[in-house]
């Protein structure tokens, strides 16, 4: 027997009392004295260390590196930006896998490929044979670099503490990479892993530093975990293991790549990949895969089996190799199976609490006939006994960081027969609850949600008056010199209101035209994107319309609007870049020392490189003015054809000299929602600043037609009348209101800071230039703190900061002063409020009654007309309406 290979950390494992086993020719720790169950649970609960230095680490360099990798890997290497990693498969000629691998791009000039330990010799032979036709070098640096996986909810904290507070990767997203220095040693960090943990890193360090970092991480509280736990963790996460879910299967066949669920992400047919190895059979598999996903099994022979998660419903343990039956017919076999432990939970949704109590479940992955669906029952032959199991979509989810959450299969509950209903009683209950809620929100609570506003009594009354409930479709007709032609009768009043409203909004925004029929900020953006695309295609309508090319916007994680993202309103309007196979969106770079501020100089470079068709300013987490004027000047000087849009949803009510005057600074389109800092009911608005003689006036006309009939038929006439009153109020009171908002926000931020909270933003400009104040309350604590404040009558948003993984991991509170400013709060009240928040958040005090008392004197909206000023017209309308 040949000598087993050892990693650089071998002696460390032995010293820790690990049970060592032969794993693919390596003497590796299967477990430490704590055991696999504890190691698994500690990973899910805290943080574990895995020595993965046995895996193969190759550096691919040379002039043909990209062409070579495009040919030999399944993925699109050109989609990989610097400091990103991607999962990929090394396909063979027949559509099976030589191995699966991870490709990293830590630096310009080469690629770093990590392959399975047991396949190193086979992979190298394959890669080197292919490399003969390319000018590339493949260097095996496995001996020079050690690899340590640091996985679990605390992994990020541990790395941040080793990095003296710096973030491990520039963005908190999976597959992000960075090269950093820790304690004078160079460390390559990848936000990757094989445990399914939403927070997990793999670090590559010079071999001589491996033991140092292992000890350092253990001193910080991480514990070692062996290959046993690595296997149960990856199985729970549904991740494939070569030799089980890939490679030659139990039936002696080479498992097809599209049988593996991750193939969808790992295989690219981008034109840039050319005729890569296995392309033809993979295209055939992919075609069958697409049909199967639509439950069309006519080409199932091209992809007869798929790897699926299964859960055992009876007492027992699934094991690799067990046959699987459906109605007596063998339909596959278990590829991996075991019993995995988990922590039980109580509560639901965000209130879910992870308990100390453990349980276990028998789960597996199985190679199953492709026509089996989720929730289908199958029978597993467990040593002669047939036991019931079920095909499940997944065993675990990692979309609520910082924890991976086990998902247990539950049968659908049958609805109990509905009892006889007493609808009058239901109606009464609804009215009582609405009254209770209204009183709580309007009398007892202090609302700090920056995207909300209480409209004035006049606005509210008008919203309820006729024409609420009416229709008033209308369109400009060229034959009548662009007169608005209405499709319904009884609409003369709303025609009058709309004309006045458009004029008031254009005056407020400082532009030539305003579209007010849009019902929300999101719809405003969709109408604009749709119009931009339509305008782009207007000269040739006989072909499929071309989508929008590169768009520059604020990244959602840095506060960008959801409604300006491909996952939001851009979804159907932005093209996919054929080279990178990603939506053609680039983001504003931000300043290293202030992630809330756009880096203007770096932005210019991005604009120069991508020549974006559309630039979208504006954010929903916004502390700074947007550099509209600087970017306008740059694109004009450089003659870059583009359209500059500012989504002012949050700051619509701040347009003016106290904040920004977007059209004066060079924006062409402003969109917004009218109920955040603005005084209106919940609607949208689009303003543009083109004149009739401008080429882009045609785009304005397209925006109008993409509003009606493009987006709305019934444009909610009641709130439209209310909106006109709101516009009057804003144009009348904006100077005092806006200056009070900005003053209050700076003062509130300062008071929170003095009360001990960690306030974001630049202190030299009073932390904020808007109505918003952002305070950090600790990673992942946002939801809990926000809930606690709500119990104390303070309503805030919890919010993920640019360094956090998403809403469940959010550690910040986003607060806005606009609504309470409207109710008359000044710096004194905000100081009192800041102290109450600090008492509640930092000192665990109950402050609900004090909050109620503070609110009690501020229940009538200001910056609007009193009934006295209106000669009792409000009272009169109220009587007419019978309200």
């Amino acid at each position, binding site marked *: 027997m040949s000598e087993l290979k050892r990693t650089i950390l071998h002696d460390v494992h032995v010293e820790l009392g690990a*049970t060592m086993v032969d794993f693919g020719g390596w003497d590796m720790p*299967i*477990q430490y004295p704590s*055991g*696999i*169950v*504890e190691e698994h649970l500690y990973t899910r609960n805290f943080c574990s260390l895995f020595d993965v230095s046995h895996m193969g680490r190759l550096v691919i360099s040379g002039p043909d590196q990209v062409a070579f990798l495009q040919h030999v890997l399944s993925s699109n290497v050109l989609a990989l930006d610097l400091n990103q990693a991607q999962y990929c498969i090394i396909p063979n000629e027949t559509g099976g896998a030589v191995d699966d691998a991870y490709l990293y791009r830590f630096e310009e000039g080469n690629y770093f490929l990590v392959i399975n330990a047991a396949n190193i010799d086979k992979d190298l032979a394959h890669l080197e044979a292919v490399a003969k036709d390319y000018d590339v070098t493949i260097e095996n640096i496995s001996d020079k670099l050690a690899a340590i996986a640091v996985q679990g909810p605390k992994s990020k904290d541990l790395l941040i503490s080793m990095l003296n507070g710096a973030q491990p990767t520039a963005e908190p997203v999976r597959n992000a990479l960075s090269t950093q220095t820790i304690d004078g040693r160079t460390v390559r960090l990848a936000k990757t892993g094989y445990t399914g943990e939403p927070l997990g890193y793999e670090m590559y360090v010079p071999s001589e530093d491996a033991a140092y970092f292992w000890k350092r991480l253990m001193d910080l509280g991480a514990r070692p975990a062996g290959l*046993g736990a690595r296997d*149960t963790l990856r199985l729970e996460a549904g991740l494939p293991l070569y030799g089980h879910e890939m490679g030659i299967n139990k039936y002696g066949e080479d498992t097809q790549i599209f049988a593996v669920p991750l193939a969808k992400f790992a295989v690219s047919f981008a034109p840039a990949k050319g005729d890569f190895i296995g392309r033809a059979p993979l295209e055939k598999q992919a075609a069958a895969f697409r049909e199967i996903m639509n439950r069309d099994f006519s080409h199932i022979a091209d992809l007869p089996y798929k790897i699926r998660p299964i859960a055992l419903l009876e*007492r*027992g*343990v699934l*094991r690799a190799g067990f046959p699987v039956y459906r109605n007596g017919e063998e339909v596959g076999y278990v590829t991996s199976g*075991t*019993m*995995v*432990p988990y922590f039980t939970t109580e509560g639901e949704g965000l209130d879910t609490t992870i308990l100390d109590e453990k349980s*276990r479940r*028998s789960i597996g992955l199985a190679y199953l006939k492709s026509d089996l669906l989720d929730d289908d029952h199958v029978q597993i032959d467990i*040593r002669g006994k047939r036991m019931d199991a079920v095909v499940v979509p997944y065993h675990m989810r990692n979309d609520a960081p910082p924890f991976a959450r086990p998902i247990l299969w539950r049968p659908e509950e049958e609805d109990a027969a509905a009892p006889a209903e007493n609808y009058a009683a239901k109606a009464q209950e609804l009215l009582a609850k609405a009254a209770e809620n209204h009183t709580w929100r309007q009398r007892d609570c202090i609302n700090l949600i920056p995207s909300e506003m209480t409209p004035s009594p006049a606005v509210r009354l008008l919203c309820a008056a006729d024409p609420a409930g009416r229709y008033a479709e209308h369109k400009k007709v060229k034959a009548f010199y662009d007169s608005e032609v209405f499709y319904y009768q009884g609409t003369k009043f709303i025609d009058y209101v709309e004309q006045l409203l458009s004029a008031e909004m254009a005056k407020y925004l400082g532009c030539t035209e305003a579209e007010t029929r849009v019902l929300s900020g999101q719809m405003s953006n969709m109408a604009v994107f749709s119009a931009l695309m339509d305008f782009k295609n207007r000269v040739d309508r006989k072909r499929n319309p071309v989508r929008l090319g590169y768009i520059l916007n604020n990244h959602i994680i840095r506060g960008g609007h959801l409604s300006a993202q491909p996952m939001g309103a851009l979804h159907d309007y932005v093209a996919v870049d054929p080279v990178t196979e990603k939506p053609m969106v680039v983001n504003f770079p931000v300043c290293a020392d202030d992630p809330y501020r756009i880096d203007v100089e770096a932005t210019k470079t991005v604009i120069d490189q991508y020549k974006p068709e559309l630039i979208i300013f504006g954010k929903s987490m916004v502390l700074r003015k947007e550099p509209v004027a600087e970017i306008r000047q740059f694109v004009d000087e450089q003659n870059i054809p583009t359209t500059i849009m500012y989504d002012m949803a949050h700051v619509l009510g701040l347009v003016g000299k106290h904040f920004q005057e977007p059209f004066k600074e060079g924006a062409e389109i402003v969109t917004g929602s009218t109920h955040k800092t603005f005084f209106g009911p919940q609607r949208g608005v689009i303003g543009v600043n083109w004149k009739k003689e401008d080429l882009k006036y045609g785009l304005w006309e397209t925006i109008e037609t993409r509003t009606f009939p493009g987006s709305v038929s019934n444009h909610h006439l009641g709130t439209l009348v209310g909106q006109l009153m709101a516009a009057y109020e804003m144009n009348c009171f904006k100077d005092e209101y806006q200056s009070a908002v900005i003053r209050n926000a700076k003062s509130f931020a300062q008071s929170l800071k003095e009360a001990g909270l960690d306030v974001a933003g630049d202190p030299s400009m009073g932390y904020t230039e808007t109505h918003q104040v952002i305070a950090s309350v600790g990673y992942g604590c946002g939801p809990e703190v926000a809930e606690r404040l709500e119990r104390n009558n303070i309503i805030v948003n919890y919010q993920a900061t640019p360094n956090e993984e998403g809403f469940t991991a959010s550690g910040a509170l986003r607060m806005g002063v606009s609504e309470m400013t409207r109710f008359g709060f000044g710096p004194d009240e905000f100081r009192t409020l800041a102290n109450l928040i600090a008492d509640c958040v930092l000192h665990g005090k109950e402050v609900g009654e004090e909050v109620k008392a503070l609110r009690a004197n501020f229940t009538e909206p200001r910056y609007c007309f009193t009934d006295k000023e209106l000669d009792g017209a409000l009272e009169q309308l109220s009587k007419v309406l019978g309200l």
Partner: protein
Amino acid sequence: MNIPAELKYSKSHEWVKELEDGSVLVGITDYAQDALGDLVFITLPVVGDATTAEESFCDVESIKAVSDVICPVSGTIAEVNEGLADEPEKLNSEPYEAWIAKIENITDKGELLSADEYAAFLETCEEA
């Protein structure tokens, strides 16, 4: 390694506790549980079934594998420790409390070792 003096042991690492009524309790030893690792499942024997000395009468499963438990005696299963079905980890945490089965009508006791003999036997196991 814990080897209580009052128990008897088999070379396949089960313990036997002789009760006054002539029946016995059977479990796995501390050495066995340590070697098997975290136990996550047990298929208990069935009450009323006959057992044969030195033949498998139930199995335990760790995360990695299934292992047979050998019955040290021939007899009839009188009772099984149902609690282990829900808490197989007791086999690891308290191996000498976690009896698997009570066996009565003993006809053959196979080759049982005293605590000292088992300790000596374990040393030969370690060397091997």
